[in-house]
C-alpha cells in the first residue's frame, strides 16, 4: 500500500494540517516509508485471530451515574482565544 501526492494533500486537509506544495513530495515519501514498514506485518498469517485491543488483559472500567465534575466555567474558558457572556466565541460558522 502506498499513497500519492493527491492523497497526502487530501489527508492533510481533512486533518487541518497545512502542507505546502513543496512539502508534499517529502511528506509522501515519509508516509510511504512508514506504510512499507508496517506492511511487513502482512507476512504473518492472522487468519482466525481476533484483533487485539489492548496489551494488558483489562476490562473497560465503568463509572457510576453521579455528577462529580463540571461547574468551573471560568477555568474551562480560560484558554479560549475569545469568550463572551460565558460562551466560547468563534468566527461565524454557518452551514
Amino acid at each position, binding site marked *: 500500500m502506498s499513497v500519492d501526492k493527491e492523497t497526502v494533500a487530501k489527508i492533510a486537509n481533512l486533518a487541518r494540517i497545512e502542507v505546502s506544495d513543496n512539502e508534499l513530495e517529502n511528506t509522501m515519501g515519509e508516509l510511504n516509508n512508514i506504510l512499507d514498514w508496517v506492511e511487513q506485518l502482512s507476512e504473518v498469517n492472522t487468519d482466525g485471530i481476533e484483533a487485539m*485491543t489492548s496489551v494488558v488483559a483489562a476490562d473497560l472500567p465503568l463509572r457510576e451515574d453521579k455528577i462529580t465534575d463540571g461547574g468551573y466555567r471560568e477555568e474551562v474558558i480560560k484558554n479560549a482565544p475569545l469568550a463572551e457572556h460565558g460562551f466560547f466565541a468563534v468566527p461565524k460558522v454557518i452551514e
Partner: protein
Amino acid sequence: MSKLYPGATGNWEAVIGLEVHAQVISESKLFSGSATAFGAEPNTQVSFVCSAQPGMLPVINQECVRQAVRTGLAMGCQINLRSVFDRKNYFYADLPQGYQISQFKDPIVGEGIVNIELEDGSNKDIGVERLHLEQDAGKSMHDQHPTMTYVDLNRSGVALMEIVSKPEMSTPEEAAEYFKKIRSLVRYAGTCDGNMDQGSMRADVNVSVRRPGEELGTRTETKNVNSIRYVMQVVESEIRRQIDVIEDGGRINQETRLFEVATGTTRTMRSKEEAHDYRYFPDPDLLPLEFSQQFVDDLAKDMPELSDAKKKRFISDLHITPYNAGVLVAEKESADYFEALLSATVEKSEKPTSELGSLVSNWVTGDLFGALNKLGIGITSSPVSISHAAELLSLQIDGTISGRIAKEVFENMLESGKSPEIIVEEKGLKQVSDTGEIEAMIDEILANNVDKVEEYRGGKSKLFGFFVGQVMQKTQGKANPQVVNQLLKPKLDD
C-alpha cells in the same frame, strides 16, 4: 403493497429510512461526570473531559449502557454483549475533541422490529437496523453576534442513542407513525424524555424514489428534524421534489439537506468541497464494552410494561374499547394518570377494577381530555387531582349524583379547585333516590297532566320521556333516573 406516487411519466414509489437521535436520561454525561440537565447557564456543566483539554481520558457511565440495552429490549432487538467505540473525525466549532466518540462497526444493539399501526387500522412491521451509543456535540448559536458564533458545551458529551431503521417505510404516514412509536417506546422504557422542543429527540430522514420494484434510487438525508409533523413534511416534499427532478431529466445528488419550517420544504446544505470522510477507527482510549447475558436478563426482568402490552391489557382485562385504549396509551402520562385514577376509584368505591375500567376510561378520554384541550394544557398540569377525580367518579358510582350532575360538578371543580364532595354539599346537588319523595312527585305530575297521561295510555308511548323530564325539572336534575323509571312505568301503565 406500498403506495404509489403518480408522476408525469408513470408511477413511483418511495423508500424511507429514519435515524432517530434520542438523548439518554442520565444524571451525568456518557464519558464525564458533568451534569446533563437542560437549560443551565452556558458552559457551567462542562468538565475538562467534555471540553477536550489535553490528556483527559473518557470513562464510560454504566447507566448510559443500561439505558441503551433497555431501549434495545423495548424494540425487541438483539443485544450485543461486546461492542466497540470508534472515533468519527470531523472539525466543527462545537466539537472540541475534533472527533465524536460513536460506535461504527460493532454497535451495542443489533436488529429488531417495531410494529406500527396505521390510520386505516392495518399494522406494519418496521425493521430496526441497530442502535449505537455516541456523544452529543455542543450547541452553536449563530444569531447572538453579527460576526461571531457562540458555543456552549453543556450538551457536549451527553449520551445519545442513534436508532437506525431499515429503509422499510414508504409513506409520510408510516415515517410519522414509526417516529411516534420510537418516541413512545423510549418514554415508556424511561430511557429518553422524548422532548423534541429541547432537542432530546430528533430524526435524520432518508428518502429516495424509484420505479415500483426496481433498484433503489439515490437518497437524500435531511438532518435534525424535530417534530412528527416536520418528518411528514420532509418526506412529502422530498418525494415530490425527487420525482420532479428525475422526470425533468435531472439526477438526484446524494446529499445532506436542511428542513425549512417556514416553507415546509428542504434545501440543500451548502456542500463542502470535500465529501464527508469521517475516517472511523477504534478509539484507543476505550476498551471494548463487554457485559454478560445475566446483565441483560436482569435489565429485561425490570422492564416496565410498554404501550402495546398495556393497550392489550386495557382491552382484555379492563373491557376498554380499543379506541379509548389507544388514546390512553399514546402518551405515557395519560396511561399513568388513568391507571392511578382507576385504582383510586376502585379503592374509594369498593367496586372491582374490571367493572370500573370502562367508566373511568370514558371519563378520562371524554370529560377530562375535553376540558384539558379547551384549556390548552397537558395531563401533567391537570387542575383536577387524581383524588378529586376519584371522588367525583365514586359519587356517580354510588348514586349520590347522576351522570349529568357529575358533569356540572366537574365544571365547577375546574374553576374552583374544590373537592367534589364539598361542591355537592354546598350546592345541594345530591341525587334524590328516596322512593317516597319521588313517588309523591310523580303522583303530583300525573295529576297535573291528565291529558298527557290519557294520550300516553292511548298509545303515544314517546311521552314517557316527557314525564321523566318533568320529574327532573322538579328536582333540578337530581332525581335518580333509574328510580324515576322504575316508579313511573307501573303508574303510567296502570
